[in-house]
């Protein structure tokens, strides 16, 4: 019972411990607030600028969500292609890796030249940063279908489409959702980078303006907003995952499939 309670409140306790540590450091080293504000100053800024923060926060959320949605669709399609066809693997994978190794912040100015300042560079950066984990995980799920199962299917005369629909896609769901949780957080990173480099709205823009005014508490307030949105979206993915892939988790909580942890390849 006690153990259960501990587990339930553990994330809140560690979050509180982190805030306390932050506070303690500010107090002990007597850091001025234009270098590192105390948690209370950040929260005060959060309250003071609540209106601007929520408007820009929603803008960031929307941009992230667009980029993420495109990444999910493109990632799923590419993952299925790369995972189920040797030719597609040979042809596309090196290119994808090369693409993924490009520092995305460097691309933002190019996007601005192409599409102008606004939401599009943010959506593109969020997409670029977050689609690769989806591709890698879905491709892994497809490539690791048991050969015997493939033989059973093929001996029945199953087409590639049958195999994809009846085996590949359901089997890839746990891997897919594992990658979504990583992709959504990366998408936030992408959006905020684009907003800092070349935005006229969004949390990243708020941070840029705030830091040029030495309003460091506001920078931290903005960071808090981004983290809360990140955790929120992560929880939504987690909830959907639990709903749709309950078969891959035994009651004891041990995962059946090694839920593709490959996805950590990111930014």
């Amino acid at each position, binding site marked *: 019972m006690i153990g259960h309670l501990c587990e339930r409140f553990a994330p809140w306790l560690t979050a509180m411990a982190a805030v306390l540590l932050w506070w303690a450091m500010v107090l002990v080293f007597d850091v001025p607030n234009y270098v590192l504000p105390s948690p209370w100053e950040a929260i005060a800024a959060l309250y003071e600028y609540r209106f601007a923060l929520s408007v820009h926060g929603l803008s960031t959320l929307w941009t992230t969500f667009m980029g993420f949605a495109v990444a999910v669709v493109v990632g799923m399609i590419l993952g299925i292609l790369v995972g189920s066809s040797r030719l597609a693997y040979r042809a596309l994978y090196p290119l994808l890796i090369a693409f993924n190794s490009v520092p995305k912040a460097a691309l933002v100015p190019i996007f601005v030249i192409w599409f102008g300042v606004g939401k599009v560079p943010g959506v593109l950066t969020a997409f670029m940063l977050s689609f690769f984990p989806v591709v890698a995980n879905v491709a892994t799920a497809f490539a690791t279908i048991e050969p*015997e199962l493939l033989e059973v299917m093929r*001996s029945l*005369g199953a087409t590639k489409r049958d195999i994809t629909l009846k085996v590949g896609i359901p089997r890839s769901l746990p891997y897919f959702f594992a990658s979504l949780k990583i992709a959504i957080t990366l998408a936030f990173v992408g959006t905020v980078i684009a907003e800092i480099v070349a935005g006229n709205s969004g949390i990243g823009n708020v941070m840029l303006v705030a830091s040029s005014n030495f309003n460091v508490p506001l920078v931290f307030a903005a960071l808090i907003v981004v983290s809360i949105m990140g955790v929120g979206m992560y929880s939504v993915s987690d909830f959907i995952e639990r709903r749709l892939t309950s078969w891959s988790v035994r009651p004891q909580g041990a995962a059946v499939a090694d839920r593709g942890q490959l996805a950590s390849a990111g930014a």
Partner: protein
Amino acid sequence: MSFIEISNVDLVYGKPGEKSTVNDTLAVSDTSITIEDGEFLALVGPSGCGKSTLLKLIAGLIRPSRGSVKVSGQEVTCPLKIVGMAFQNATLLPWRNIRDNVMLPLEIVEPYRGRHRQDRAKNRERADILLEKVGLAGFAEKMPWQLSGGMQQRAQLCRALIHEPSILLLDEPFAALDTFTREDLWGVLQELWEFRKCTIIIVTHELREAAFLAGKVSVMSSRPGRIIKTSSVDIPRPRTLETTFEPQFVELVQDLRHHISLGKTS
């Protein structure tokens, strides 16, 4: 004309679409065998001698490099669709319950495929009849991980049989089970064969299993595999565990063992 005719088949595993090189594996060499309709054949031989390969050739999953594979007089050029297959690991789909797993072939093979939606109730009943035959009545709604290894194998047999295939290909289906479960399943398989009367080819490492189940046992030599001896098993059915202690049975097993060791040295 026999039901299945394999004549002078070679099979070389190499890189697909490339000219053969010395590195390629000659898995099966100059193999010939005929199997009659409704026969129960066991294939034994040392590890890596090409038994699984032979099954894949019959199923039409791979094409011979030389020679011909014919089923009912027709050259096999693509997957046959009239075969059921089962393997050492059950490969059930973990997101489907047992009944839906068993019904999988009906969603793929014609003519069931087109009628799958209308016939759903009928198909469920067929699945349940098979499940009952293998002793899984009442487990239809369970998920695969709720079943033991032996029970999963039973379910796999049902999946292999649901579309009433004329050929059942079993690749070491019981190899991962303990002796008691395995011997139980011999009985189950024997009954299924009496019930369906399809042609069964079973690959096994266990000579007692071969002798217990089959009407004919073929011994393969080590790689490159060839059939070096085929003996018929003239023990009346239904065979029981007592049968396995009779002198005739023991002698047969000894004889098979002898031929396998000959095949290894040659």
